[in-house]
């Protein structure tokens, strides 16, 4: 494959993008949401939404794709260019077997028979790490996990060994350990087949470890591009610098003096067990119950910020719901401020613990004004405080919003602003403990840095404790004093944050830390490699 240049103009989405990929090379395209990076990928595939107009030229080995007709493009997609998407859960047709779906790539483009195509499908699935004895071709997508499905999607894309592979946020929806495996797989395939790959992501650390060259996009423009190490070392463009700074951001914290051990914990969980009744029970069949939280104990003392990390399905959200007294425990006990907590606890006790959720779009009733939304926890008080309106405004100003925002509706705010409103809502009852359930996970890095600063500041000034739940180790590391690692319903390791990260004891913790892409480690490894080559 020769140089591919992409040049799109005329649409307000993308402005004169120039990119090129050589065979065997990985190009990382980085940008925050709305930067146009996914549109760039769809332009190359010519799968743009209706009404999009493309200008400029896209050359694949001298052929101008931008000038190709739809019929020609159908011959190129899947054969010359393969594509991997972000969401593996929905990228596969639920009613067809994985074998059929991989073989289809072959059948569409070549004159091979069905039997032969299935043979190619089997070999390709083995290449992506789905051996035939455990994953026969007759499996359906719903029988596979997210990581396995993503492997099937990759198999569909590379079945005919295309010249170019486009991966659009291929690991964003996956857990870190799965992410590490998938990235390694992609890297191996690129090297073996001599493909070019465009890796689109929002995560600088992923790109730093993997890409040979990177391009940084903002608002439909490429602000900077070049060999990975060069870009990170020189950082010519201010946006690159700010993106880098946000990614390694450490919120400034005036740590309170080491909390005294003898102070009574505000939250004390002892041997908590949460069992879900089996699903899909019938008269004849009773699947085993799920022990989502299995004998967990933890304590949070006043002013302490505690992190809880773990991959999806490890039970951390279930635990948080139990702590918020939304669900009953099947064993053990939760004590809040020394009193037993549970779904029937008095409202006065509830007022001491509040929550911020992950989704800035789903956590507000779209039909309420901000004032009403923020004031909702007043329901916990015996009677609404007389200065309720003033306290709403105070809370809004506390999180960096304005008094007049109280009369707006939630759709008028951006994701970061919504998360600020969620924090204001959590602050309104002046609680001592706030549960932050993946509270910054859905945000772009620069917004995330701002919210982390705000949280650190509030904790310092108001003396609030956080239970910070996240799958993202780097975020937890930056804001907590103590951290707990959870796996399959149990806490496998706990200790002061720095100790756990610098000297992990449990093998699972080590695996997690090794799998988490770290910008600094990736860059230093790269530096070593390049100096070795010299």
């Amino acid at each position, binding site marked *: 494959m020769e140089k591919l240049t992409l040049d799109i103009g005329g649409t307000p989405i993308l402005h004169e993008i120039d990119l090129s990929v050589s065979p065997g090379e990985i190009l990382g395209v980085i940008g925050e949401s709305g930067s146009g990076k996914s549109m760039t990928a769809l332009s190359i595939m010519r799968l743009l939404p209706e009404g999009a107009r493309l200008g400029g030229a896209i050359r694949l080995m001298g052929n101008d794709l931008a000038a190709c007709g739809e019929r020609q493009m159908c011959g190129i997609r899947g054969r010359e260019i393969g594509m991997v998407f972000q969401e593996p859960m929905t990228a596969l047709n639920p009613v067809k077997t994985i074998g059929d779906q991989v073989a289809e790539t072959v059948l569409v483009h070549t004159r091979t028979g069905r039997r032969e195509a299935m043979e190619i499908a089997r070999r390709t699935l083995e290449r992506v790490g789905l051996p035939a004895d455990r994953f026969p071709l007759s499996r359906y997508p719903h029988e596979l996990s997210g990581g396995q499905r993503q492997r099937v999607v990759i198999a569909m894309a590379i079945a005919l060994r295309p010249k170019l592979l486009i991966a659009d946020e291929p690991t964003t929806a996956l857990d870190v350990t799965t992410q590490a495996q998938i990235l390694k797989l992609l890297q191996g395939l690129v090297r073996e087949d001599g493909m070019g790959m465009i890796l689109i992501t929002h995560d600088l650390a992923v790109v730093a470890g993997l890409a040979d060259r990177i391009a940084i996009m903002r608002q439909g423009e490429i602000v900077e591009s070049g060999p990975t190490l060069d870009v990170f070392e020189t950082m010519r463009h201010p946006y690159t610098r700010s993106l880098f700074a946000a990614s390694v951001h450490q919120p400034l914290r005036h740590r309170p003096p080491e909390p005294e051990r003898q102070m009574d914990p505000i939250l004390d969980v002892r041997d908590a067990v949460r069992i879900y009744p089996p699903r899909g029970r019938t008269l004849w069949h009773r699947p085993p119950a799920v022990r989502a939280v299995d004998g967990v104990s933890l304590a949070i003392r006043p002013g302490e910020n505690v992190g809880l990390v773990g991959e999806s399905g490890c039970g951390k959200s279930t635990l948080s719901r139990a702590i*918020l007294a939304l669900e009953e425990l099947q064993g053990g006990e939760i004590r809040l401020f020394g009193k037993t907590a549970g779904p029937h606890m008095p409202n006065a006790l*509830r007022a001491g613990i509040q*929550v911020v959720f992950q989704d800035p779009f789903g*956590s507000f009733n779209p039909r309420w004004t901000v004032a009403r939304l923020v004031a909702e*926890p007043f*329901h*916990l008080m015996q009677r609404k405080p007389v200065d309720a309106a003033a306290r709403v405004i105070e809370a809004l100003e506390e999180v960096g919003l304005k008094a007049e925002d109280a009369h707006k509706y939630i759709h008028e705010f*951006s994701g970061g602003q919504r998360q600020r409103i969620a924090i204001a809502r959590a602050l309104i009852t002046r609680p001592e403990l706030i549960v932050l359930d993946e509270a910054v996970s859905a945000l772009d890095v620069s*917004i995330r840095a701002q919210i982390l600063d705000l949280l650190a500041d509030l904790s310092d000034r108001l003396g609030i404790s956080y239970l910070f739940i996240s799958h993202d180790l780097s975020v937890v590391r930056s804001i907590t004093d103590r951290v707990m690692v959870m796996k399959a319903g149990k806490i496998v390791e706990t200790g002061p944050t720095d100790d756990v990260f610098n000297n992990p004891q449990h093998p699972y913790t080590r695996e997690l830390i090794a799998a988490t892409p770290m910008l600094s480690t990736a860059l230093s490894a790269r530096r070593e490699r390049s100096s070795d080559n010299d």
Partner: protein
Amino acid sequence: MSMPAPHPTKARSLRRAVLGSRSLMLGSLITGVFVAMALISFVWTPHSYASLDIPNKLKGFSSDHWLGTDMFGRDVMSMIMVGARTSLAVALIAVGVGVLAGVPLGLFAAARRGSLADEIVMRANDLVFAFPALLIAILITAVFGPGAVNAIIAIGIFNIPVFARLSRGAALSIWQREFILAARVSGKGKARISVEHILPNILNTLIVQTTIQFSLGILAEAALAYVGLGAQPPTPSWGKMLADSQTLIALAPHVAIVPGLAIVLTVLGLNLMGDGLRDVFDPRLQRGRR
């Protein structure tokens, strides 16, 4: 996405959407005409709908009888106007029964998802679905005799599971949203959350379905009246007019065509309204307008 653009207020953008939807405008216009006819018929009709005038039977359209006369010489226009009253009233009350009983049932079942109460509500719904509205009407009339009230009961019973199921499904998806968790953290109970958070957010879906069920109700009322299970003479009803004119269709087609057209237009108007409302409420379109 991250930059909130300056935008008009909610009411203004809604008004623009309503005016922009041609189906909604046309549908409301047609429906409005028939509602107006039904209302006017209380105070004025061209002739008395019940007065017989045998010598002038089966007359065509004229300035005296705008839509002609039927086999007893009754004025068709007057009968259509009063018939609109019957049709709309029966359908409206029946749908009202469905909404008032079905929506609370659905909200209740959704709030207690997976519980025995939920199971019972849903199984009862399935059971009613085994009886098409006409079968319910047959059962009722076999024992109580025909009449408009029985038609209302039959159509109403059939509407209950429709609304129960719809509101349960819509409510379940709202219950999954994080703002419900936030409300629960604020100490609110299930009943309060259902009223404050769930109901306002499923209202759009319910309004659209109501217009659709309303039009189905008009069709059902006409069918029941046609087979003699609906409103009884002398109350005029479009379905009954069709039944009476059937044997004369070769002689005076207009007597059979006019009431049919009245049904078609009303149902069409309501369906267009439903389609238009769905477009106006569609969250995908709203996001585009933001």
